[in-house]
C-alpha cells in the first residue's frame, strides 16, 4: 500500500463520540481560536497608538453584536483551554488517568468554563450599568 493511501485513525465517520475525544479536539479548536484572540488583543493595543478615533473604532467593533459574539467565544475558549490545560498538567504528573477520573475532570472543566464565562460577562454588563 502506498504511503499516501494508508487509512487514517480514528475512522471519523464511524468513530463513536466520547467525552475524551470531544474535549481533546475542543482543546485544539479553542487553542486556535485563542491565537486569533491574541490578534484581537494586538489590534486593541495598536489601535490606541493611532489615537482616539482609531481606538473608538476598535471599541465600537467589539461592542457590536458580532464583536460581542467573538469576545463571548474567546472568553469561553480561554476558560476551557485554561481548565483543560490544568487537566493536562495533572496527566503530565501521571495523575487522573483512570477512565472515571478522566470523565469527572472533563465534566468539571466544561462546568468551570461555562460558569466562569457567565460570571465574567455578568460582571462586564454590571459595570456598563445594564444589569
Amino acid at each position, binding site marked *: 500500500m502506498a504511503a499516501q493511501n494508508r487509512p487514517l485513525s480514528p475512522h471519523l465517520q464511524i468513530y463513536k463520540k466520547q467525552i475524551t475525544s470531544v474535549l481533546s479536539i475542543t482543546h485544539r479548536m479553542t487553542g*486556535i481560536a485563542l491565537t486569533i484572540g491574541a490578534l484581537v488583543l494586538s489590534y486593541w493595543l495598536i489601535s*490606541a497608538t493611532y489615537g482616539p478615533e482609531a481606538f*473608538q473604532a476598535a471599541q465600537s467593533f467589539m461592542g457590536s453584536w458580532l464583536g460581542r459574539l467573538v469576545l463571548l467565544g474567546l472568553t469561553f475558549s480561554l476558560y476551557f483551554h485554561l481548565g483543560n490545560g490544568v487537566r493536562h498538567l495533572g496527566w503530565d504528573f501521571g495523575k487522573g488517568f483512570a477512565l472515571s477520573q478522566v470523565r469527572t475532570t472533563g465534566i468539571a472543566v466544561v462546568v468551570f468554563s461555562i460558569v466562569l464565562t457567565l460570571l465574567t460577562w455578568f460582571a462586564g454588563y454590571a459595570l456598563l450599568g445594564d444589569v
Partner: protein
Amino acid sequence: MDMRSPLGRARGLGSSNDGFGHWWMQRLTGIALLPLSLWFVYSAVQLTGASHAEFVTWVGEHGNPVLLILLVITIYHHGQLGLQVVVEDYIHGEGPKIALLILIKFGAIFFGASSIFAILRLTFGGS
C-alpha cells in the same frame, strides 16, 4: 527494541525533530499564562466601554506595562508552539507544511513585536 541510533537517543529527538524542548516550553508558557490571562480578563472587564484616555492611562499604570508585555510574549510563544503541532498533525504535504510553519513563526514574532512596541508607546507617550 530501540530503532534510534545512539546519537539520536542522546539528543532525545522525536518526530517533531525537536524533542523535549517543545514539550517543556509549551508547559512553561502554559503555566505562566494561568495568572497572566486571568489578570488580563479581570482588567479587560474593568475596561468595558473605556475611552481612549482611560485605556492609555491603564496601559501605563503601575505594573500593567510589564504584565502586558509578558502576556504578549507568552501568548504568542505558546500560540505558535500549539499551531505548530496542529500543522504538523494535519498538513501532510511537506511544502505546504513548511510554508505554513514559517508563516506562523514569522507572524507570531511580527505581531508580538508590534504589540510590545504599542505598549511602550502608550506608556511613554508619543501618541
